């Protein structure tokens, strides 16, 4: 059974891969300059994008239903790793890049762990894969800490949670002061980058809240119960 992604997640990847196809314009000039490694990189990027779209994502606007990823794992992992790397290198407060980064991490993990569409909702797909294993918060890694917080706010965080509430629910029981401080710093950094915003005491993702799918909302209760 193939891994499945939501239409919004498909759109996120498709829109990036469409841009990748324009790398073909730089291919022949690279060959003419004798830059064969660059030509190899560009050709591989374009070929992978074409295959993933033709096989899984399909062309044009998003389908209404989930999209199954049936491409060979090595192709998926290669594309996701590249997209993750490129979106991580994106300068400035780019919420879309952060979301793409999260999605790539989640999907790569799902593929590597052999997750499939039968995985329990809230644990096996897209956003809702826990980026940070329970019981650990990446204190020493700012980027991972930001991703963990952003992922939580997008996926499981009760709407309009206060900062204190968010930290209390996101962090494992008995979290250390260092973990709490690192999480708080990550929230502030995300606010500064424009990925999160504060409405009074409430922490919100700086994307329209309608982007969160209704089923995510319904699953919030379940996510909370698991704690």
């Amino acid at each position, binding site marked *: 059974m193939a891994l499945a992604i939501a239409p919004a997640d498909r759109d996120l990847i498709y829109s990036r891969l469409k841009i990748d196809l324009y790398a073909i*314009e730089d*291919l022949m000039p690279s*060959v003419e300059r004798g830059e*064969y490694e660059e030509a190899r990189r560009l050709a591989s990027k374009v070929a992978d994008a074409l295959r993933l*779209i*033709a096989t899984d994502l399909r062309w044009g606007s998003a389908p209404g239903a989930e999209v199954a990823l049936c491409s060979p794992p090595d192709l998926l992992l290669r594309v996701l790793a590249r997209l993750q790397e490129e979106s991580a290198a994106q300068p400035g407060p780019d919420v879309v890049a952060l979301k793409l980064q999260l999605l790539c991490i989640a999907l790569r993990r799902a593929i590597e762990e052999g997750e499939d569409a039968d995985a329990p909702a809230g644990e096996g797909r897209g956003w809702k894969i826990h980026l940070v294993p329970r019981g650990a918060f990446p204190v020493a890694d700012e980027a991972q800490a930001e991703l963990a917080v952003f992922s939580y706010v997008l996926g499981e965080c009760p709407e309009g949670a206060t900062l204190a509430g968010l930290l209390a629910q996101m962090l494992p029981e008995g979290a250390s002061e260092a973990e709490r401080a690192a999480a708080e710093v990550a929230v502030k950094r995300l606010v500064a980058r424009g990925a999160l915003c504060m409405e009074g005491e409430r922490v919100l993702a700086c994307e329209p809240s309608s982007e969160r799918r209704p089923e995510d909302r319904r699953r919030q209760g379940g996510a909370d119960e698991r704690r």
Partner: protein
Amino acid sequence: MSITIPAAQAQALWRLFQDTLDPSCLATLWRAVDRSDFETADRIAREYADTLDLLLEDLRWGVGLGEEVELRSPPDLLHRVFTRVGEEAAEIREATEPEQEEARREEEWNRLLEEASRDVLAVLAEGEG
């Protein structure tokens, strides 16, 4: 299974695929997407990807094609590419056959005219002598 092709065949392939590297080729794909002809878009995408892979793995951007080339791409990819190349070459041959026949006839007329001129002039030269 090892497959090797002579240098001349590799050069012919490189000559054919060079056109694929032209960005305008993707315009055909986008036109198909725009008119919601996704089947055509899929076909073009897969053919394009196959060609790029063959260029990457085997034809190496046309560098060092003075020697025979060992094809290392996966058999399924080679099967798809060479089926397509063979069909396209046959189509081109069939399409250009009338022109080639005409060119052959033209060449024969020319040869006869040259021959006639040479023969007549030779006889005239003998008479003058």
